[in-house]
């Protein structure tokens, strides 16, 4: 009887441990398994966000890093944790995010886009300027030649208009590129869409 009790206790301990640390397991999987995500240069997105047919494990991962995210009909979330050369983004470095074409959103339906910086813990990074993102430039009209770049660095540059501060301590960080009301090109051909480059300075 005692033996059965011991075996049962081990089962309960095993269940408890895996439930307690399931979030950490998800973090590991998110970092190391691409799943059904789409990769385009340094950017990755997951077309299954918010979809009923998405697998359970992917839904759990999405709940971990993007709880409440819109599906790709409404918003496409591109994320990058490496630069165009495939190296980890680190806040001791400086980067340019270079747009060579206007992001594919429906501007005439009030679509817009933004670039946001997150720390290694996936939360916004404290900085003296309370500046975490840059968004769609209102002055650039659809159809115009679109040239735009965003500078990322720990130190404030002389012209801070197109600048987003990086974490003060050296750490890995990530970039989110949100496209609200994506157009059909972005939705159906995300893998070939012209996304901005992330170049280490």
């Amino acid at each position, binding site marked *: 009887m005692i033996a059965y009790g011991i075996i049962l206790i081990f089962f309960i301990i095993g269940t408890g*441990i895996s439930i307690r640390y399931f979030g950490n397991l998800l973090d590991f999987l998110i970092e190391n398994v691409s799943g059904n995500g789409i990769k385009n240069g340094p950017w990755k997105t997951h077309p299954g966000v*918010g979809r009923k047919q998405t697998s359970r494990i992917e*839904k*759990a991962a999405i*709940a*971990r890093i993007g709880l409440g*995210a819109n599906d790709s009909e409404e918003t496409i979330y591109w994320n990058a944790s490496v630069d165009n050369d495939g190296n980890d983004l680190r806040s001791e470095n400086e980067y340019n995010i270079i747009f060579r074409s206007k992001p594919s959103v429906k501007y005439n339906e009030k679509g817009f886009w933004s670039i946001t910086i997150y720390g290694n813990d996936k*939360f916004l990074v404290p900085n003296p300027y309370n500046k975490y993102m840059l968004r769609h430039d209102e002055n650039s009209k659809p159809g115009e030649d679109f040239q735009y770049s965003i500078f990322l660095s720990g130190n404030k540059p002389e012209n801070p208009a197109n600048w987003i501060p990086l974490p003060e301590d050296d750490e890995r960080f990530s970039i989110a590129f949100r496209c609200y009301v994506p157009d059909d090109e972005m939705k159906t051909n995300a893998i070939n869409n012209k996304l901005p480059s992330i170049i280490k300075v």
Partner: protein
Amino acid sequence: MKTELVIAFSLFSLIAGISAGIIISVIYYPGWEISKLIKIQKKEGFSFGEWNHLKNLADHHLRVIVKPNCETLYSISFIQKKDGPYVLKMPAFDSYFSFAFLNRNTDVLGYITNRDAIENKDNTFIIYYNEKEIPDVKFRGIKLNSKICWIIGRFEIKRSEEIQKVNNIQDAICLIKLKDYLNDN
């Protein structure tokens, strides 16, 4: 039972327990995260059908939502099927907005957005579960099929000077049970 057998079965049992825990977590993790949010809402004094309007853009102090955006203000509410249909009244708003409706598995059930609204006018929408529940009203609507639904409103902020204006819009958003709406009208 021999000691060696007990040790062997205990180790096997530990591994089986870990596997069972992983399977349970995979199935229920999104629901647990939603339950945590409902608890937080209740703790902050918001019942089902009440809005919790976040009046400032997300900053580094916000730790409830992973990877929050900083270009929209959020308004959050949970509704229950047992409370029946709701009417959602949205004041005129000239920028991007969306209300996403999610179930406990975080599946998006649908949206009400600026593309559904008549521009420069107050708009009224109906949230329902069954066509038979709703009277002959001419509102646009969204049909849900979930016992509990999480509504996430997002309202675009183009520049920080707009925050107060959007706060006023948030305060004017009305979510009212259909039966109460019909009594009032």
